[in-house]
């Protein structure tokens, strides 16, 4: 299978990429690692007139720590780079990264491509939602803006990015004082994508009392038509010790307000039930990792 013919431009800087995007806009597609886009183009499910190759833009690669303790991850950072980085300490990344795709795909697939693609069952969006990540984006016509991960995903394969907008970097907040995180998913065995995946972060801010937790973030992928934060579960757990009884009492609400997807791999009822199980396991995993 070969993609349909297209024009090809290689951008060597962010400015060049933004200029090409301004000129060609919706007729062009960015290509980073190509691990989502090329399979679609080979099946002719995507037929862009032009590819703008951003894979060589060095400024978009790598991980650096900002002065305020946050991590800035360049959008072209691959899964393999993330696994190799000593800066990526969050437990949920350690859970998720080795299970995403395979060695070869992790060597090319980028964090920016994964979230811009916005597959409703992909793992990275859930991790970034649970971490309250911020996404720095830029376009020639509207300049730079920072979008909260919680505002970014709109539907299946749909985000708030404009057609001429480039994802520059992902900012991860420094962890709160006493925290733990975990990711648990039920994998569809053939594709490796999540039937239900849940990322959990629990922590204490200065305001927390005793051994209760007031910073609870739970994100779900594979279940709705886009990844979401399970607000009802979060609310039920704030102020509790996040122990077995409080987890058991809270996780039942993990699909609240969400239209649960059904397909040949998992009908709605099963998927919803598995989301509950994954939420419970992710919270237990986060609790076990408390620093």
């Amino acid at each position, binding site marked *: 299978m070969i993609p349909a013919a297209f024009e090809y431009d290689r951008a060597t800087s962010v400015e060049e990429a933004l200029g090409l995007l301004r000129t060609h806009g919706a007729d062009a597609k960015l290509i980073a690692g*190509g691990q989502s886009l090329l*399979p679609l*183009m080979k099946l002719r499910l995507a037929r862009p007139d032009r590819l703008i190759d951003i894979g060589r833009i060095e400024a978009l690669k790598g991980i650096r720590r900002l002065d305020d303790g946050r991590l800035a991850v360049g959008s072209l950072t691959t899964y393999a780079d993330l696994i190799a980085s000593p800066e990526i300490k969050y437990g949920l990344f350690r859970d998720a990264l080795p299970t995403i795709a395979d060695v070869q795909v992790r060597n090319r697939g980028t964090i920016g491509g994964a979230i811009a693609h916005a597959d409703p069952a992909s793992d990275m969006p859930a991790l970034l939602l649970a971490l309250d990540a911020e996404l720095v984006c830029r376009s020639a016509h509207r300049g730079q803006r920072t979008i909260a991960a919680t505002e970014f995903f709109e539907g299946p394969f749909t985000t708030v990015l404009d057609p001429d907008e480039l994802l520059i970097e992902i900012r991860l907040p420094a962890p709160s004082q006493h925290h733990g995180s975990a990711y648990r998913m039920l994998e569809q065995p053939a594709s490796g994508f999540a039937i239900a995946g849940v990322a959990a972060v629990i922590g204490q801010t200065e305001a927390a009392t005793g051994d209760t937790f007031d910073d609870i973030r739970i994100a779900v992928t594979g279940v709705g038509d886009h990844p979401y934060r399970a607000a009802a579960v979060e609310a039920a757990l704030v102020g509790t010790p996040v122990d077995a009884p409080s987890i058991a009492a809270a996780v039942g609400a993990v699909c609240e307000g969400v239209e649960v997807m059904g397909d040949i791999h998992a009908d709605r009822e099963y998927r919803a039930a598995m989301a509950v199980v994954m939420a419970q396991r992710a919270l237990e995993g986060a609790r076990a990792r408390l620093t």
Partner: protein
Amino acid sequence: MAERVSLTVNGKRHDMDVEPRRLLVQVLREDLGLTGTHVGCDTSQCGACTVVLDGSAVKSCTVLAVQADGSTVGTIEGLTPADGLHPIQDAFWGAHGLQCGFCTPGMIMTAADLLARNPDPTDGEIRHALNGNYCRCTGYQNIVAAIRTAADEIRTGAGATPAEAESGAGAASAAAAG
């Protein structure tokens, strides 16, 4: 419109004009005649097309040749020494790590990438590394045994001379049988 692409494949530089939609695996097989790299699924799943691109294993059916411009590419042909077999090839032979052989070039290139990073992998690490390589014949047991044997051979410095290949093959078969 064709783009000028320069690739250094198995140490030899090639400058050519390539239509942007052509895949790296097509250029390797059709333009350069390196048919050791196989196309299995063509949908990024099976890993038969695995090559080492700038030092990392990738699926060459899911890379455009234009994306690889200026890169170095290692294929199964480049792994094979002028004389005899590479220790990984030898161990696949000895441990019966193949039946039809279709998946073998991809398996071996993934194994070469693994052993370059981790010279002494556990069976678990070998299996994890092979997650993107499918074999429809062997059931994987002997592939894992072959990679373990090759790792030992390479670490202990045993080369790929025909005599050593024979004894290595014997030891590997015995290990696989036990």
